[in-house]
């Protein structure tokens, strides 16, 4: 079994919800997610973000869905850290 431990995403979002609300919504997707959000660029109506999420087993589809629900769009996955686990007998 392979679990996603860390992802770094390039995301474009509207100004609202703000960075704090946005990162809190992402953190709520899992029980042990740690979210770091950097605002890279601010335009008239949008913000470009770099979001780093760390967790024991990140549910990437749920993350993607939350990003879309908040009106943002995922541009690229910039970094990934995955780990395989030894299956028990």
């Amino acid at each position, binding site marked *: 079994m392979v679990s996603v431990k860390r992802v770094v995403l390039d995301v474009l979002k*509207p100004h*609202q*919800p703000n960075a704090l*609300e946005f990162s809190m919504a992402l953190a709520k997707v899992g029980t042990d997610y740690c979210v770091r959000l950097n605002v890279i660029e601010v335009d008239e*109506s*949008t913000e470009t973000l770099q979001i780093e999420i760390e967790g024991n087993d990140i549910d990437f589809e749920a993350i993607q869905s939350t990003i*879309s629900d908040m*009106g*943002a*769009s995922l541009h690229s996955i910039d970094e990934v850290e995955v780990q395989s686990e030894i299956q028990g007998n």
Partner: protein
Amino acid sequence: MSLLKQAKFLLSITRSHDIVRRYFVVNGFDGALTMLGLIIGFLVSAPTDTSIIINVCLGAAIALGMSGVSSAYVSETAERRHALGKLEDAMISDLQDSAHGKAVHWVSLWIALVNGFAPLIISLLILTPLWLSKAGLSLPISPLYAAIMVALILIFLLGVFLGRIAGISWVRSGIQTLLIAVLTSVLIYLFAGH
């Protein structure tokens, strides 16, 4: 997400709290002044049966409520669709299924309900003495005067509410709105009383 949390989230991302507050005060004031005008109109006219006064005022209150709901919903939806279109252009993506897309309908509906129910509820409160009198309860003063008193108190409270929002003296703000009501009453008396 619970319905209340969802509503708070949608109001937050659309920054609509102040719009809701503004609609509440503007249309609540509308309702209170309309009832005040009608009641003073009845007061300076030939004596009329209480049930007729209640029916006329209730008709106006319902019309104010319906007008508030429908006009706010239509205009807010149009404005929000326009804003969503601009945001979609900036994002280069379809936002209909996002919180911003849902807010077009739900936030407009919430604003419309506040806009409609504010004058309706305030009007119904002003009519309370008339209902009590019709139900056979004896009031210390004439029901029409009691209704005017209720209207003036509610108008004063709307002023107090505005004062607290603005962070200025609530007494001063309450007296300001009360003066508007008194001026309205004097104008009605001058034009309709003779």
